[in-house]
């Protein structure tokens, strides 16, 4: 079989039947990384030795007829915001440039138990703050569909790795859209689960009430398979919810009869690229043709989402990033005068401009005299945003919307205009504020050949419904089978 362009499910079938060995597959991915990643820049660290060792062990166990995990032999790329014991975990920041965690994140443990083969750590915006991966302290990542453009962010490396066929599966994190938006820009599937569905233990914290880890894959089945492995209660994360994880793969092919797809007119206001709007309308037509009903829903507070998010997230970030003080780990300045100066100099040297901006914004919004007007106000608006969704889900099962206002933008285009960059998160961040699950799937291409994503958002713990609804659309469309030119066999 051709490994290139194969989906995770196809690869897993070939691995299970013995047609393909884990070593052959890992080698193929590692070789492609060597060939292509100089151009793409998806990886910060590749663990060739570790991956091949792991793959060899899995092949051995399989041949001996011993039980193997659910993802046995499948290569996975992991965003560098996730702790992987003994491997660098830099969060794309100079402040953690030499940090090797002494423990695995819960999702890392789950990947290992599932016998996935961890290829390496992927590039991202520093501390997950950004929408283009241009805020990485180390390198930029390029969109495999057009290398003059960004892959989106902050999980740009993971999205690009899957799009370019460097890895069939990847893990990202999503605080305001950081899985869904790069998935849309790179033409792959990316999902943010319900808050609490996946443990945050070992996920380097950006905004604790918004962060969630989730899967990237080339198709819905791959995302479902990876989500199944990632999800579940973890006593080490007190915000992780104790709820059984459904067998997402087993119901995936069952369409939802009587599906009501909600569409909010608020989402089609000025600023939305015409081609993106067309793709979303075309998706609605496909659902109609499958017997679904398209229902108008109102999300009157959606226009306040960006403002609320860009007060809440930086406030939580300012608190979470206070730990990077050069004391126990991370960068400590070479020269300073006393303890406070050690903190200030180490942090000043270790953090990039966007991180500093958000820490400043957060501390300002939380400071005495401003707390009520900014942070508390934003939290109240957050409840109104959540109530809008609760009301909407009384009349629909899933919400259909754009993922981003435009397809992928050029490298350098928005990096000097923080506010413009923030505004581009408008369709994704409400789901984080409300704690809801959302999936981005390939929904078409622009005239220029750039991927356009469509988004489905569901009620809390509605992942099964989301995945089935997503699969209904995917079955009728060719978008998930397309591959960028540079990923096609040479």
């Amino acid at each position, binding site marked *: 079989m051709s490994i290139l362009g194969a989906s995770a499910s196809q690869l897993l079938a070939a691995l299970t039947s013995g047609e393909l060995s884990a070593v052959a597959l890992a080698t193929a991915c590692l070789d492609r990384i060597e060939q292509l990643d100089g151009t793409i820049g998806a990886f910060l660290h590749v663990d060739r030795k570790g991956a091949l060792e792991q793959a060899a062990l899995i092949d051995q166990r399989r041949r001996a007829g011993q039980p193997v995990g659910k993802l046995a032999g499948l290569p996975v790329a992991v965003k560098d915001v996730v702790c992987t014991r003994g491997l660098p975990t830099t969060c794309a920041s100079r402040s953690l440039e030499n940090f*090797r965690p*002494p*423990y695995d994140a819960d999702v890392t443990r789950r990947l290992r138990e599932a016998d996935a083969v961890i290829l390496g750590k992927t590039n991202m915006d520093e501390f997950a703050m950004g929408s283009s991966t241009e805020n990485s302290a180390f390198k930029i990542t390029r969109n495999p569909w057009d290398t003059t453009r960004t892959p989106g962010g902050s999980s740009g490396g993971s999205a690009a790795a899957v799009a370019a066929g460097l890895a069939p599966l990847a893990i990202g994190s999503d605080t305001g859209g950081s899985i869904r938006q790069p998935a849309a820009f790179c033409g792959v599937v990316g999902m943010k689960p319900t808050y*609490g569905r996946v443990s945050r233990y070992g996920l380097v914290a950006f905004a604790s*009430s918004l962060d969630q880890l989730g899967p990237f894959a080339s198709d819905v089945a791959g995302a479902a398979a990876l989500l199944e492995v990632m999800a579940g209660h973890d*006593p080490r994360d*007190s*915000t992780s*919810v104790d709820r059984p994880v459904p067998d997402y793969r087993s119901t995936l092919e069952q369409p939802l009869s009587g599906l009501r797809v909600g569409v909010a007119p608020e989402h089609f206001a000025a600023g939305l690229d015409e081609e993106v709007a067309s793709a979303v309308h075309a998706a609605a037509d496909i659902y109609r043709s499958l017997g679904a009903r398209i229902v108008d829903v109102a999300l009157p*507070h959606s*226009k*306040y989402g*960006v*403002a*609320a998010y*860009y*007060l809440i997230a930086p406030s939580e970030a*300012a608190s979470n990033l*206070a730990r990077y*003080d*050069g*004391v*126990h*780990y*991370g*960068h400590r300045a070479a020269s300073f005068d*006393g*303890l*406070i100066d*050690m903190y*200030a*100099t180490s*942090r*000043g*040297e270790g*953090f990039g401009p966007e991180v*500093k*901006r958000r*820490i*400043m*914004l957060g*501390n*300002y919004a939380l*400071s005495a005299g401003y707390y009520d007007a*900014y942070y508390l*106000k934003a*939290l*109240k*608006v*957050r*409840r*109104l945003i*959540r109530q809008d969704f609760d009301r909407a889900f009384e009349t629909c099962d899933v919400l259909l919307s754009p993922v981003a206002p435009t397809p992928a933008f050029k490298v350098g285009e928005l990096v000097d205009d*923080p*506010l413009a960059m*923030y505004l581009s998160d408008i369709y994704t961040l409400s789901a984080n*504020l*409300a*704690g809801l699950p959302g999936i981005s799937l390939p929904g078409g291409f622009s005239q220029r050949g750039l991927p356009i994503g469509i988004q489905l958002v569901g009620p*809390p713990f509605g992942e099964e419904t989301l995945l089935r609804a997503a699969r209904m659309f995917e079955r009728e469309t060719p978008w998930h089978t397309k591959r960028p030119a540079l990923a096609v066999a040479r």
Partner: protein
Amino acid sequence: MTARLTRDEVAKVALLGRLKLSADELEQMTAQLDRVLEYVDILNEVDTESIEPLAHPIELSNVFRDDIEQPCLSREEALANAPKTDGRCFVVPAILDGN
């Protein structure tokens, strides 16, 4: 449009956050933050009089576990990433005067 944020305020907030900023950074940061704060003023349009803040999407409370010792990091592991260590502790600049 009057700027709401002064360089002095920004410098004060930088101190609160233990962030050393260069003069250029301070200048740029003041302008950029001011734009964002101007934008977020839109929240004042919303009537939140009777609305409770939503700090957290799932509103769990009192998630406890039994106070039983669990395996933890060894000293070696805990010190492995230390910028400065004497093998037993993290070494930091003196905080207290005298001996």
